[in-house]
């Protein structure tokens, strides 16, 4: 193609330089990458994916199944960008070649800005062609909240390539006035915005390209692309129609394009061939020949498989003196050395003629674009006149209008858009006065008889060059092979031949694929149908899906009020659930094991402090609070005296453990319950679920108060001395403040602090809870006032080691999904006197069977062997097949015991203490001994002292 000296919507005074496959080229403002390439004489844009055939641009819009490029962005690259809808910008760098239809990603992060926006409206109109614009105008005049999205660079759709006038204005002018009217009335009009995913209940994911001009994007901090999450009360799909190619031998040569594309390139981009031949099965295709002729292009003829059409357009062509090849088809083409189209072989009633041409415009007719409708399994039916699927019934809350609804003329599309808007608005309770709708001035055209043609049989029988899907290089031969292999269902044909699996989901290929399959299998086209459409309608970059949810905005990172205190002590942090917790406080030069060793010995030998603010905390109160907790927890929490605490556990209905924690009775009708860090939200939801669904009459109020209180545990043989200093007014002697007692008082000057004698280390311990923001006061006071007592802050690593030594479980780590309290060694807590959630299942024999996976302790035989969580335990290391007896659930270096110990779940483990098993570590396995879970201080003297 060549650029005409005048005309088109391009700005010749603003040239833009860009690069394609390393070549420096120039286009104009208003160009797309495709039009710029054609204007620069680049007809061959690359080679096809598997056959390596030269390929060119075949469309000027969404039908494109050939022109895809790899486009460079600042510091990144985007694969599979459709050239025909990518606006040209200065400095654009794109690659074609053979990789164009595969695409690739660059290693490393992509720092581009990709945004997300939630939007709400009464009416979402998808597609800004005649139907969409008519609908949006009407709705916006009626005062509705309207959103209009258009996949192309500009609004207008088919109006931009048609010469019609609307409401007395040239179509293009009418479109720009309509856009301005909409915009000024508050309608959000998005261009370069693809409705990609249809959501249930009238939602739509729209992917918009904003940084069309990269310079603007980089300088202004605008996002390159934005994902719109739209909710609308009603949706109008005015997605238009796509032109269907015709399959014939060598139909993939650069220079062969759709007739609508030929017209769009002429009208919008002032691009014309030297000699343009037209091959059309409908009257509409004649427009390309007429437009070319009017622009002074040599049109060697119009090939039409029908007998001479009686329509208005063919009559005009005849009047213009254009040569008509009636009852003729293009049965093949030839190319020059670079692969460009040279001639077309036209077969008619009087034989074959070779026609010279550099562009061949093809039209098999137009068919509705229904991808969004089909994504939600909207029904379609086969329309024999169009030779394609049309919508059967729109989905609830949706209307389909214009060409997408089979209204193929401008006049019908405008009227259908207005009709759909009226109906859609009525469903939202918005009344539309009047019946006016935009009308084209030109009278309706008389159309000739329709004839549907999908393929021209190759004269020599070689159909391995008759392309059905250019993007996937699927040919008629491929379909023949599929059918020959006994495949008949179109979805199976798709998977066997890959037809329609390309980035554009074979939009322009699937009707042909279905129809040709039908002819090969001798079935009606309507019975074979076409393969379905799945989201997204267009390929989306992963980057637009991840959007701004990156780095610290990806997942909430929760920190306690003591975070800065830990950091000041040089803590190393680790994530636990969403929290950042201090895992240890290494001194200079210490290894991990040395730090844990030192911290552990400090707790066992003197006193340590640890931040346990992440534990879930729940306030439960009300006249029925005792009854309620008794029904949920396994032991008799209802018999806990005021000022006392009890360790307990929750079970699911099937008897499996949900969580464990401490229940503290603050007052007669008031409890303070703790949960493990990872289960804080779960337990609150669990309580709410039971209260709301089963016991709504019960007067119990459950309030999560995790972030109301900071909690610090003070543990170790000298903990009492330290607490006595921090809380001088509190009686801390073992008699006045025994194990499992709870007191309230002033600690480090903080009034109303709660001090509970509970222990997760097995040492004498006090958990101090104060208002969230005051946590650092207690922490600092403990560090200063405990200095001479050897106070040592300890982290999660040491906390783990200490609790493993004591055989204290973490539900979810040392239990499986089916573990019962019996399995976890908590059978002692199950009350014999009451019913609770899970009891009924626990009482069944299966829940107490001997061979179940039961909690045990394990001790490594070798001093240096780490016991790795998740590692399988087997009877003998060399056995094949291995019989797996269980697995390690927790393991640690025990400073106290001077070796590695752990916890494990082992089949029938409770009766297997003393047995030797092997952890599948290293080549020969690591020998471990099954022992009691409590590795240290079995009688609990230290804790109770």
């Amino acid at each position, binding site marked *: 193609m060549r650029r005409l000296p005048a005309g088109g919507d391009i700005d010749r005074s603003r040239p833009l330089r860009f690069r394609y496959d390393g070549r420096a080229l120039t286009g104009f403002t208003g160009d797309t990458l495709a039009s710029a390439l054609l204007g620069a004489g680049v007809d061959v844009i690359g080679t096809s994916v598997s056959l390596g055939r030269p390929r060119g641009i075949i469309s000027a819009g969404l039908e494109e199944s050939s022109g895809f490029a790899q486009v460079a962005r600042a510091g990144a690259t985007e694969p599979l960008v459709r050239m025909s809808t990518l606006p040209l910008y200065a400095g654009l760098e794109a690659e074609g070649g053979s990789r164009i239809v595969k695409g690739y990603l660059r290693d490393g992060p992509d720092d581009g800005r990709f945004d997300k*926006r939630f939007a709400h409206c009464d009416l979402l109109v998808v597609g800004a062609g005649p139907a969409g614009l008519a609908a949006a105008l009407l709705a916006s005049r009626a005062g509705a*909240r309207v959103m209009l999205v258009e996949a192309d*660079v500009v609004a207008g759709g088919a109006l931009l390539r048609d010469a019609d006038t609307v409401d007395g204005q040239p179509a293009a002018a009418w479109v720009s006035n309509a856009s301005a009217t909409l915009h000024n009335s508050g309608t*959000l009009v998005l261009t370069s915005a693809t409705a990609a995913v249809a959501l249930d209940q009238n939602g739509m994911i729209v992917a918009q390209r904003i940084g069309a001009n990269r310079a603007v994007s980089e300088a202004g*901090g605008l996002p390159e692309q934005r994902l719109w999450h739209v909710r609308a009360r009603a949706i109008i799909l005015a997605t238009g129609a796509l032109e269907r190619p015709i399959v014939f031998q060598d139909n993939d040569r650069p220079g062969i394009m759709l007739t609508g594309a030929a017209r769009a390139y002429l009208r919008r981009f002032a691009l014309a061939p030297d000699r343009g031949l037209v091959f059309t099965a409908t009257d509409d295709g004649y427009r390309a020949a007429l437009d070319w002729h009017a622009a002074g292009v040599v049109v060697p003829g119009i090939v039409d498989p029908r007998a001479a059409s009686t329509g208005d357009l063919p009559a005009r062509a005849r009047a213009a003196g254009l040569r008509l090849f009636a009852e003729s088809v293009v049965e093949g083409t030839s190319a020059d050395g670079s692969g460009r189209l040279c001639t077309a072989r036209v077969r008619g009633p009087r034989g074959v003629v070779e026609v010279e041409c550099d562009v061949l415009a093809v039209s098999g007719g137009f068919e509705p674009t229904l991808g969004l409708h089909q994504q939600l399994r909207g029904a379609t039916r086969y329309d024999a006149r169009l030779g394609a699927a049309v919508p059967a019934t729109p989905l609830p809350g949706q209307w389909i209008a214009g060409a997408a609804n089979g209204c193929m003329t401008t006049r019908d599309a405008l009227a259908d858009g207005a009709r759909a808007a009226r109906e859609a608005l009525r469903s939202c309770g918005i009344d539309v006065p009047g019946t006016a709708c935009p009308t084209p001035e030109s009278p309706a055209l008389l159309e000739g008889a329709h004839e549907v043609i999908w393929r021209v049989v190759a004269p020599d029988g070689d159909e391995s060059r008759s392309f059905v899907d250019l993007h996937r290089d699927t040919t008629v031969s491929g379909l023949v092979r599929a059918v020959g292999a006994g495949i008949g269902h179109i979805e199976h044909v798709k998977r066997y031949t890959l037809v329609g699996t390309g980035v554009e989901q074979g939009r322009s290929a699937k009707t042909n694929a279905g129809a040709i399959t039908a002819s090969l299998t001798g079935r009606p086209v309507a019975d074979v149908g076409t393969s379905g459409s799945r989201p997204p309608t267009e390929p989306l970059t992963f980057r637009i899906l991840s959007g701004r949810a990156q780095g610290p905005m990806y997942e*909430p990172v*929760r920190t306690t009020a003591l975070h800065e205190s830990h950091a000041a002590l040089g803590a190393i942090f680790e994530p636990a659930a969403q929290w950042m917790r201090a895992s240890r406080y290494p001194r200079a030069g210490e290894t991990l094991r040395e730090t844990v060793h030192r911290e552990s010995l400090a707790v066992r030998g003197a006193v340590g402090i640890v931040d346990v603010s992440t534990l879930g905390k729940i306030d439960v109160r009300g006249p029925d609070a005792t009854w309620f907790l008794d029904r949920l927890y396994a032991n008799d929490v209802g018999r806990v005296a005021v000022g006392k605490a009890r360790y307990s556990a929750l079970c699911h209905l099937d008897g499996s453990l949900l969580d464990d924690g401490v229940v503290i009775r603050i007052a007669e009708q008031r409890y303070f319950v703790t949960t493990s860090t990872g289960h804080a939200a779960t337990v609150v939801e669990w309580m709410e679920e039971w209260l709301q669904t089963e016991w709504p009459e019960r007067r119990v109020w459950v*309030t999560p108060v995790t*972030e109301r209180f900071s909690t610090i545990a003070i543990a170790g043989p000298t903990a009492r001395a330290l607490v006595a200093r921090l809380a001088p007014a509190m009686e801390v002697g073992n008699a006045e403040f025994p194990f499992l007692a709870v007191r309230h008082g002033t600690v480090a000057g903080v009034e109303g602090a709660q001090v509970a004698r509970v222990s997760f280390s097995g040492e004498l311990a006090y958990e101090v809870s104060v208002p969230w923001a005051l946590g650092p006061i207690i922490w600092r006071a403990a560090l200063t006032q405990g200095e001479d007592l050897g106070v040592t802050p300890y982290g999660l690593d040491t906390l783990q080691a200490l609790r493993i030594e004591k055989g204290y479980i973490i539900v979810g780590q040392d239990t499986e999904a089916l573990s019962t309290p019996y399995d976890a060694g908590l059978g002692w807590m199950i009350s014999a006197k009451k019913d609770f959630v899970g009891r009924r299942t626990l009482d069944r024999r299966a829940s107490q069977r001997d061979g179940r996976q039961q909690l045990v302790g394990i001790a490594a035989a070798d001093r240096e062997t780490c016991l790795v969580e998740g590692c399988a335990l087997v009877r003998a290391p060399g056995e094949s097949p291995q019989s797996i007896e269980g697995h390690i659930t927790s393991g640690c270096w025990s400073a106290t015991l001077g070796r590695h110990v752990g916890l494990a779940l082992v089949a029938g483990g409770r009766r297997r203490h003393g047995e030797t098993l092997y952890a599948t570590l290293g080549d020969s396995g690591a020998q471990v001994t099954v022992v009691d879970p409590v590795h240290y201080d079995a009688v609990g003297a230290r804790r109770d002292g």
Partner: protein
Amino acid sequence: MADGSPLAAHLGALISKASFDDARLTPGARVDLLSVRARRSAVQRVATALGQESLPPPNACRATILGDCFWLRPDEWLFATVPGGAEAAMKTVEPHLLDDGAVIDVSGSRIILELTGPRTRDVLSSCCPLDLDPSVFEPGRCAQSIIGKVSVLLHLVDATPRWHLFVPPSYVDYVVRWLADGIEGARAEQENALATTPHSSPVRMLP
């Protein structure tokens, strides 16, 4: 937090760098918070005690003698009262609950962030799925929803618009980052005059 701001230093810097005239994020006033739970029988007694005809209906906020009162769920209201006022407020409410409700001091379990300016709807709609159009979300409305992934209570205080977001302290870092990033985006849009919502102004379409 040492300077008395409820925000950590790095967040303070983040929001002052991002904020501009049309979208400004600041720490909100400090408050004491009370959760009032009341079964149907007690709701009226509490309302009367506070001189109100009723407690706010779903997704609404009303000013009371104890400060702003927010509907949280059918039997729960949140009172934001003056700092140090929790105890007195509890004494006002508690006698009217009898055994049909409870009042729980939840001070400190949420921090208020204030977001003001004509571009704030753009900021919020970049991370919150609610429909915040002035035609449906009017001053005095509140709603519990999400910012990014976390629960927040959102309150439209006045038509500036001025928003209050009630955020648990451990999530403040995450929420502030989302809002600050949204503000930066809104500023870029304003500077580039990009149309994003019908309420943004000035507007111009990019090709």
